């Protein structure tokens, strides 16, 4: 029942924020997200039972949620990042802002727990709406266009996903099976040869856009650039994982033969994305956009891990999703704090800020090092496992990934150096306030913790991926 807690609490809290006073909304939202986090602790340590209620019995749709190793830590990522993002938001945002944030937490939690394709799709699409309104109303000058772009690009993907989902269920039914949307029931089904490729593409495009992965990342620069820092942290930290998670959760059980068939194409696309993101990050002068393109490159890294079709690569991706979410979320929030103090994001306009704000500089450095994959921090573990998987399947791509790691260090340190080090330019800025440190410390601590103890995640995720990895090993795939 703790799983229901994770969904019900944000939903109830969302309604409560509407009833709260304009100033009290943030408090209500913070309490709600914290209560949800407590529920997650219960899920982790007390009782992991899911729910399986009939929903639309005529279509075999069941409200089926599970917290298995694949989604469990993403649910945690969701719960943690929302606490941080709500605490990092200003009281001035008004109650509707917090309403949308909590609605987003609700839908993402549902997405990471759903094991019924219908339920999965419902949450998949519902989460677009809060982000759309967050971008429309609480973002920069071009926020409206960014919101439209976000919504339309994502919905283009989702609608194809919808056709794919219904088609899979109908084909399963026409082959003599029950009419169901349960992923476990549909997994390993035989698809007609002609339809299989189309369905594969329909699913893949949706997840590809949401991640986003090159070349379908068109919405990303605008949305990341225009949104307020907490929202950016959520989009890049949590929502982007939905795309990768979808590939793992939905596509792997259904389309393993197709993955093997198109492995090379997928690897090449992901590798191009990897390079593109890294090189684009190198050319940006806007520190937020550096991180955004860096994140694009990291998403491609996760995709590479999956497409290696090896156990270690896929496990690495599962782990890296959580690690990256925490780190990039923290990084965007620190950047937001920096921007609110200096009023600019252009790196040339800033220099030597570590003199006046040493604590801010320290946290900035911490998350930068995490993002570039310093050993000891979780980014390194994830990247290491993914590269190991790539070596097992296609060595060329391991070389590319290794090269990109060097570039990643370059573009991240370039930002840090320019902004924090050197002779101070301009007026001094305020350092972090005590209440801001109060939520940055646990976040950093969590990052260090999963960096030091990756087995905590991988040992849980491995059984959930058993089906996939077993299948891969049984057919000798990727070895």
């Amino acid at each position, binding site marked *: 029942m703790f799983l229901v807690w994770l969904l019900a609490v944000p939903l109830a809290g969302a309604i409560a924020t509407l009833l709260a006073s304009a100033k009290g909304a943030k408090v209500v939202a913070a309490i709600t997200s914290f209560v949800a986090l407590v529920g997650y602790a219960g899920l982790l340590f007390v009782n992991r039972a899911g729910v399986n209620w009939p*929903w*639309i*019995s005529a279509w075999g749709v069941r409200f089926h949620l599970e917290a298995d190793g694949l989604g469990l830590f993403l649910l945690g990522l969701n719960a943690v990042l929302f606490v941080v993002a709500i605490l990092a938001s200003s009281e001035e945002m008004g109650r509707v802002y917090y309403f949308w944030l909590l609605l987003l937490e609700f839908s993402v939690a549902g997405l990471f727990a759903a094991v019924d394709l*219908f339920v999965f799709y419902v949450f998949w*699409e519902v989460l677009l709406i809060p982000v759309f309104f967050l971008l429309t109303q609480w973002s920069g000058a071009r926020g409206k266009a960014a919101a439209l772009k976000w919504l339309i690009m994502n919905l*283009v993907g989702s609608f194809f996903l919808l056709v794919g989902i219904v*088609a899979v269920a109908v084909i399963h039914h026409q082959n003599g099976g029950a009419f169901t949307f349960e992923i476990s029931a549909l997994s390993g089904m035989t698809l007609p040869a002609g339809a299989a490729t189309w369905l594969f593409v329909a699913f893949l495009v949706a997840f590809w856009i949401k991640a986003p992965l090159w070349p379908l990342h068109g919405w990303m620069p605008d949305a990341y650039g225009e949104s307020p820092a907490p929202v950016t942290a959520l989009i890049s930290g949590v929502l982007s994982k939905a795309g990768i998670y979808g590939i793992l959760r939905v596509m792997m059980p259904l389309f393993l033969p197709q993955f093997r068939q198109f492995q090379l194409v997928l690897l090449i696309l992901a590798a191009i994305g990897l390079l593109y993101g890294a090189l684009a990050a190198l050319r940006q002068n806007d520190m937020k956009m550096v991180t955004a393109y860096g994140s694009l490159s990291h998403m491609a890294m996760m995709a590479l891990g999956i497409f290696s079709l090896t156990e270690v690569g896929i496990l690495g991706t599962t782990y890296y999703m959580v690690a990256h979410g925490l780190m990039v979320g923290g990084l965007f929030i620190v950047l937001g704090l920096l921007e609110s103090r200096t009023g600019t994001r252009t790196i040339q306009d800033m220099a030597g800020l570590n003199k006046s704000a040493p604590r801010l500089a320290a946290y900035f450095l911490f998350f930068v090092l995490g993002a570039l994959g310093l050993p000891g921090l979780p980014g390194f573990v994830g990247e290491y496992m993914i590269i190991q998987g790539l070596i097992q399947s296609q060595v060329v791509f391991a070389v590319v990934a290794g090269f990109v790691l060097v570039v990643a260090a370059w573009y991240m340190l370039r930002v840090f150096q320019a902004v924090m080090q050197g002779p101070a330019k301009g007026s001094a800025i305020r350092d972090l306030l005590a209440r801001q440190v109060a939520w940055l410390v646990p976040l950093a601590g969590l990052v260090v913790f999963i960096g030091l103890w990756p087995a905590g995640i991988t040992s849980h995720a491995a059984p959930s991926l058993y089906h996939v990895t077993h299948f891969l090993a049984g057919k000798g795939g990727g070895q």
Partner: protein
Amino acid sequence: MNGALGPEYMVVLGVFASMIAVMVSRQRTIAAYWAALAAVVAAGIWTAALWSSPALPISLYAQGVRVDLFSLAIDGLVLLASAGALLVGWNDARYGADFPALVLLALLGMMVLGLANNFLVLFLGIELLSLPLYVLAASGGYAESREAGLKYLLLGAFSSGILLFGLALLYGASGTMVLTQLANSSLILPLAGAGLALTVVGLVFKLGIIPFHMWVPDVYEGSPLPVTTFMAFGTKVGAAAILLRFLFYGFSVAVGWWEPALGYLAVLTMVAGNLLALAQKDMKRLLAYSGIANAGYLLVGISAHNQAGARAMLFYLLVYGLAVLAAFSVFTMVARERNSVSLNDLTGLARRSPWLTAFLAVAMLSLAGIPLTGGFVGKFYLLQAALDANEPGLAIGLVVGAMIGLAAYVRPLQRAFQGGDGTSEAPVRWPVAGAVVVVIAVLGTIGLGVYPAPIVHIVNHSAAFDWLR
């Protein structure tokens, strides 16, 4: 008799009652509205009571009408539509005292279309539906309204002519006027083909399918807002019901004659209707083109030609109708004494009336097909039907149309959430009757999105075309 036509008699009595009420007191027109609403409610209760009647299905008047669960479902839908229209235009002096009686007459036509099993009754229903609507369209009294009325009259008469010609040819080719006997009669082929084509054209004209849609935007734009509400919901229900009945009962065997053609029309309508909706600045025109596109979705259910298709169509009619009721009642409140709402009128609505904006958002998102609203479940059902009929083209057309439509539906929302220009910051006033409509429609939309199982159960029973897959 056994009361199978009770709902229809209730509506007839309602027409008389509201006419007499107008005659008795010309100043207090509200009595006519109450009489009409009471008739609608009574008919609704009777329909619900008939639902579990063991006498159904029953054929009456030499197989002229057929009362079955399908016709009862249609009754329920059109009763909802007319109740909504009556409440949206509740006792508004602008539309004249005849408004409730005319709405009830058109309602009667829609109900007749739901149970018609004979060419004559079919045509009677179409005319009974159309004639009051011609008058209603022109009842605004301003120039655009008169233009809408005349345009509707001329083009409607034209389509009626085509329909009548088609029916005559079909009778000539088959020798029967009864829909359920058509399948068993030996048809004279070229004659029957021409008759079928003309009849279908006449019917899809009423439904507003591209390329027979030219009248829809102008008529919707010109008509008074409550009339547009009624036309958008009710006419669509009636026309879709009779088209489905005509094709499924009469031409299930000769499915190859009409299914591909209707499939192409459906795809064309969904894509082009939504594309045209993108370009609209006037909200009535936007919803008119949205109505065209939604007629295309309905046509998907028909051309899928399976039980799931009929069920999906019934379900979709309900969710579409609820969204239209919600959207139009919000627009009526925003428009106040004017008769149109443009994109600019919506600017800053969120600050003026946050709740009204939230309701509008639900309606628009339902039309766009976002989950947790009824619109999504409806589209999902239609997709199932199309794919179950092995028609991936229809499914793709549906989602492509929905994608384009989405951009059209979120634009008003973005405007509403934008900051206003400060000229009209006063909150929008809520008339009680309109508020009732919008709250019920929004709750229904969300309810159908969150827990559609009961309604799915009902439509599964009412569309029992056993001979189909």
